[in-house]
């Protein structure tokens, strides 16, 4: 009996491995954030628009917030920018930006020309805060809970689709629990 069952079991396991490994939707570059469910890394940055003021974890404490890592050299950021503008207009939740490894004047031009969906953006010119947040490519978007934990990390440009499937349920759960 085991003579016939064993190869079958091994084969079935292999099939499962291949189904997972060969999934065309699987993005090999996508790595889970080690911060999921954990408190977001502490940071403090000068603001992009007003370098004398700063932005830190305290800025959005108590809110479900979106932290969007962006840069003017990043094509995906341009792609998602109009969606961020829409989100900001709908006033779903406050959006904060981390302007990562960018030129300040370029970044200022960007928000002036394309619109500024951010309540505030921190200017991370040397990418130090980006490293603390485990950022490895822009755009990256973090969903932060009211108590400052990372609920979700999205890699690449945001879209209506990913917003509805990945973000909205988490936001609903987070705002529903405390009501």
């Amino acid at each position, binding site marked *: 009996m085991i003579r016939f069952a064993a190869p079958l079991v091994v084969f079935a396991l292999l099939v499962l491995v291949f189904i997972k490994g060969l999934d065309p939707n699987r993005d090999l570059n996508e790595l889970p954030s*080690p911060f999921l469910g954990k408190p977001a890394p502490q940071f403090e940055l000068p603001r992009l628009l007003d370098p004398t003021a700063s932005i830190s974890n305290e800025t959005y404490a108590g809110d479900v917030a979106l932290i969007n890592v962006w840069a003017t050299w990043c094509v995906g950021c341009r792609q998602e920018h109009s969606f961020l503008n829409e989100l900001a207009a709908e006033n779903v939740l406050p959006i904060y930006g981390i302007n990562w490894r960018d030129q300040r004047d370029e970044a200022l031009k960007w928000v002036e020309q394309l619109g500024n969906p951010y309540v505030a953006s921190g200017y991370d010119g040397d*990418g130090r805060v980006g490293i*603390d947040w485990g950022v490895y490519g822009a755009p990256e978007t973090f969903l932060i809970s009211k108590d400052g934990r990372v609920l979700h990390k999205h890699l690449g440009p945001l879209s209506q689709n990913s917003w509805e499937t990945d973000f909205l349920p988490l936001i609903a759960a987070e705002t529903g629990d405390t009501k």
Partner: protein
Amino acid sequence: MKRTLTALALLLISTSALAIDTGKAFDDPELQARYEKIIEEVRCLKCQNQTIKDSNAFLADDLRREIRRLLSEGKTNAEIFDFMVERYGEFALYRPRMSGITLLLWIAPGVFLLIGGLIVVRVLRKRMSMPIDLDDDTETEQPA
């Protein structure tokens, strides 16, 4: 003539040295040696099949700078690897540490060897317990 040939031959085997790491070297050779060892073992997350030593992506550049800073602050190698794993996960290390899920990775070769060995032993035992058929006459010639 011989000299020219030698020069040409040398030219053939020479490789171009491209400076990727443009950061300032440590004055202390011991620190520099540790630094070079560490950057060989940290993955560049942007270009996943390269170490941050081999990559000129700016993320690799940033990570090298951070490692240089941590070293000059007197951090140990283990603390520096922790720094990377904390931010980028276990995947950041080329030589995964022996803990949690990576334990499977480490013990898998041993387990496979053990399974293979058991199978070999079983097959051999079975063969040995088979009666040796001395009367096997299929090979012998029969008188016509």
